[in-house]
């Protein structure tokens, strides 16, 4: 292990390390801690200039209550859910199939199709912006959640295909050959042999895509406007306009908007990290 395990070091160094950890963490998360403290402060603290002191009274319930009952926040949150969940399902379903096709079969254009998915996944959003916006307008889906979902599914299929294909490549190929010898139809191999083995990949991709889509801002402002279809990332700007300079409410709103991916991350941490670090080690 590198660096040398701290347990093999002198005692004073061990204690220093143990003491340094929480300090470093507090420093690293300082901006977030500040926002969390802001969000439970009363309005009066800001007018009296008590920005960084202890909250004079605990107003967490009032502040968060106003976010939930006094603004469009719940609506935006609901929109985000209705955009994110179908995208996750769609992208994972499509890429399980493309990943299967590219991971199992050998045909001449295999690598080129695969590289097309990978390359497409890396392009800057701006090169797609004008045509995709036009396309969405032409289909009558501008400013609808459906329009956003369709685009997200298509775009995320690139990354998901990369992920699924590499995952399927690592499965023991002998299994598939054995099934073929038994005369199992190819689509049954997909459904009954490969899919059950893909559960970890599906879980990892689901949390990743959930986070990516929940946090998307660019396409939200390009393809939607207004409270009936905008997700929370775009909604937070209107929220902040509504509560201009009310820092306690803006903080509470930001925390609410950021929370779902955070919860997702802590619940599915193992899968999340496995997904993000796929390929970070070889062999």
């Amino acid at each position, binding site marked *: *292990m*590198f*660096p040398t395990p*701290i*347990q093999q070091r002198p005692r004073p160094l061990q204690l220093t390390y143990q003491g340094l*950890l929480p300090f470093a963490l507090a420093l690293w998360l300082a*901006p*977030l801690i*500040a*926002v969390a403290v802001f969000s439970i402060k009363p309005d009066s603290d800001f007018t009296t*200039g008590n920005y*960084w002191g202890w909250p004079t009274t605990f107003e967490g319930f009032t502040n968060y209550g106003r976010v939930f009952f006094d603004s469009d926040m719940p609506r935006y949150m609901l929109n985000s859910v209705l955009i994110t969940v179908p995208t996750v399902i769609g992208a994972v379903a499509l*890429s399980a*199939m493309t990943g299967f*096709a590219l991971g*199992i079969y050998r*045909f001449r254009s295999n*690598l080129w*199709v695969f*590289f*097309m998915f*990978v390359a*497409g996944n890396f*392009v*800057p*959003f*701006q*090169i*797609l*912006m*004008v*045509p*995709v916006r036009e*396309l969405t307008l032409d289909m009558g889906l501008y400013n609808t959640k459906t329009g956003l979902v*369709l*685009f997200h*599914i*298509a*775009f995320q*299929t*690139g990354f998901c295909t990369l992920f699924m294909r590499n995952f399927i490549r690592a499965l023991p190929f002998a299994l598939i050959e054995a099934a073929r010898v038994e005369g199992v139809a*190819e689509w049954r191999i997909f459904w009954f042999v490969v899919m059950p083995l893909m559960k970890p990949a599906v879980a990892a991709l689901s949390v990743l895509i959930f986070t990516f889509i929940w*946090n998307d*801002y*660019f396409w939200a*402002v*390009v393809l939607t406007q207004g409270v009936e279809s905008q997700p929370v990332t775009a909604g937070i700007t209107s929220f902040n306009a509504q509560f201009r300079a009310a820092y306690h409410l803006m903080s509470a709103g*930001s925390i609410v*908007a*950021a929370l779902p*991916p*955070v919860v997702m*991350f*802590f619940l599915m941490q193992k899968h999340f*990290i496995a997904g*993000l*670090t796929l*390929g*970070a*080690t070889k062999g």
Partner: protein
Amino acid sequence: MVDVTLSQVAATDTRSWFRRNQIAITPWLFLAPGLLFFLFYVIFPIFQSFNISLYEWDGLGQPEYIGLRNYEDLYWEFADRDAFFVSLTNNVLWLFLYLLAIPAGLFIALFLNQTVTGIRLYKSLFFFPFVISQVVVGLVFTWFYDPTFGLLNTMIGWVGLGPINVLGDERFVTYGIIAAGLWPQTAYCMILYLTGLNAVDPEQIEAGRLDGARGWRMLWYIIVPQLAPATFIAFVVTIIGALRSFDFIAVMTQGGPFGSSRVLAFYMFEVALSEYGFRMGYGAAIAVVLFLIMLCFIAYFLWSMYRDEKAGR
């Protein structure tokens, strides 16, 4: 066993056309939905953008073909050190400074790569910023930088330095936004390196120790080479992230003050979709420039992947 295979061979002719060609057709059936979707929404629009960039178009009326005039205009903006020049130089700045996330991530990973109690929680909490949306990170840093009450100015106030309006000063604004961007990006690189460090071969470390390699030398000659796959991914993700920087700028400064924090991604959006008028053709031309920059990196990534694929067989 032999009987079975022989009877199967004999049966081939009686199977339907689909059955006989199943292995050749199936991959395309599986590819079809994803591939069509992807072509429709991602690949074709790239070419459409190239085409639109040759037109003058407000997004509503009839597009007017103007050849390369949009690019000519961009050239003059560049030569006059106007908005396009500012965006491009800021993009270069982003590219280089964003790469700092890689060594910073490695440093934190080394710091956290221990097995003391509670270290798992520390690792997740250090990773935390990456999970939060960039919009919220941008907002948080806007308050962090605020000249009247921001934490940054409160802290430098303790050592007796005057307030700095980071986001309102043309000299600092881009650096300020990049610093905000580095926060989640460093967290990501950290998690990549933590995974990489887990897989480092302990025997090589022991061998290195026996040969008297310690500290920096050990890190540089024995650990870092073994982290190469993690470094590659960190590099890819960081470059892409740097060129995609849009959210932070849109949320923190809207490109200001006086357009000094624009990058190509934001400038394109501004030109095509904001109150400055819907100049779709001109926006597409900027997008094409950004795309071509990205294409150099994409080509390099694909080439590396191609090499690995070939080596892997």
